[in-house]
């Protein structure tokens, strides 16, 4: 069965490593913070100017001056710090942030990503996404495999305006975990109960499939 958004977040959480600084994008990536593997220490950075982000506040304890980049009220954990936007993007461009997890509308087999604009329809802006994808060494995309019209978002070439080129390392969808290699998308894992054939049928790009493809393990 295909994963739900929480399942995708849980699978991505397994990519977190001890002592990682992580930037989480809006949507599914935000959920990853709820499933940090036991026994590791990570700190979450939000580009509006906080490191050491904690969970949402208890009702009545919201502070309008303490939000994340999704404009949601948050709390901070011991060791947290606040800083200005130039310093925040210094952390990002300077590659002090180890992992960026973000959503996308399209990803190509070259690791290109599109997630900020649909010409003539939707223009929300890139926010910090262009800085993040141009700078981070490790970028994982969390998204649904196909769009609402049923079309694959895993493509040979992106059709929408790009956010960054040759930057995405891994994609986790409700169906599969894909790695971007110099030769294109490599199928690493499939969602529990999902067949390789189903994944191929939902993917426009070619897939490199070597041997038996294991099922994801999700706690």
């Amino acid at each position, binding site marked *: 069965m295909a994963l739900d958004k929480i399942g995708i977040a849980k699978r991505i959480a397994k990519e977190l490593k001890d002592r990682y600084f992580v930037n989480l994008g809006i949507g599914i990536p935000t959920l990853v913070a709820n499933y940090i593997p036991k026994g590791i220490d990570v700190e979450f950075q939000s*580009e509006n100017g906080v490191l050491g982000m904690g969970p949402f506040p208890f009702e009545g304890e919201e502070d309008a001056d303490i939000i994340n980049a999704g404009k949601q009220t948050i709390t901070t954990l011991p060791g947290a710090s606040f800083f200005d*936007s130039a310093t925040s993007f210094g952390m990002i461009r300077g590659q002090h942030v180890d992992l960026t997890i973000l959503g996308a509308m399209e990803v190509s087999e070259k690791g290109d990503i599109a997630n900020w604009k649909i010409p003539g329809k939707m223009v929300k*802006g*890139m926010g910090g996404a262009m800085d993040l994808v141009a*700078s981070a060494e490790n970028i994982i995309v969390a998204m649904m495999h196909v769009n609402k019209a049923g079309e694959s978002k895993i493509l040979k070439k992106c059709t929408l*305006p790009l956010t960054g080129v040759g930057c995405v390392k891994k994609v986790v969808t409700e169906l599969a975990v894909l790695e971007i290699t110099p030769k294109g998308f490599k199928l690493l894992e499939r969602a529990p109960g999902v067949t390789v054939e189903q994944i191929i049928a939902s993917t426009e790009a070619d897939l490199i499939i070597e041997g038996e493809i294991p099922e994801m393990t999700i706690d």
Partner: protein
Amino acid sequence: MINKKVNTVQEALQGIENGMTLMLGGFGLCGIPENSIAELVQKETKNLTCISNNAGVDDFGLGLLLQKKQIKKMISSYVGENAEFERQMLSGELEVDLIPQGTLAERCRAAQAGIPAFFTPAGYGTEVAEGKEVREFNGKMHIMEHAFKADFAIVKAWKGDTAGNLIFKGTARNFNPCMCGAAKITVAEVEELVEAGTLDPNQIHIPGIFVQRIFQGKKYEKRIEQRTVRVRNN
């Protein structure tokens, strides 16, 4: 001590004229200069170019200036929360320059610090890079971006003193420090204005040299855009 204190928002915004370029601090509705925006609505200043990360929401923040059609051009990184903005942009009434958030911050900081231009990898290979100088450093492609030029920077801080020193709170800091001193005149509105000598010099985030006028805002609504809470387990 050089006194920067002005008594009213009207005095603080004196000299802002039609067609000027303004920088305004804030991220979403967090840390925005609420009192100054309200006064700009009152002044009915028109044809403004506004440099600000977001455009507010329909009925708060810069959305108030958009409603009155006082803004000719917006320079922002993300404008997804404002329906009126989207309408004016798609109809062509409003010029919009969308730029990466880190580039926006650095173009402010560069203006503050006297750096005319810089190279960043953000936007390389995208439409943001169109028409810009591209250069390779350490095997990676970068594009050249310029410092902003603005007439007024209008920022919001938590505490300030009569010398113009500023302290920010939480993530209401965001673009505010980067914009101080990045325009010809910087106006700071603060929640609490104290006499010079009251604040600990060790705790100052922005030295008063970057601020020309400071005043205490009458009131702060501090509207929350996304109120997210967790359930208490008793």
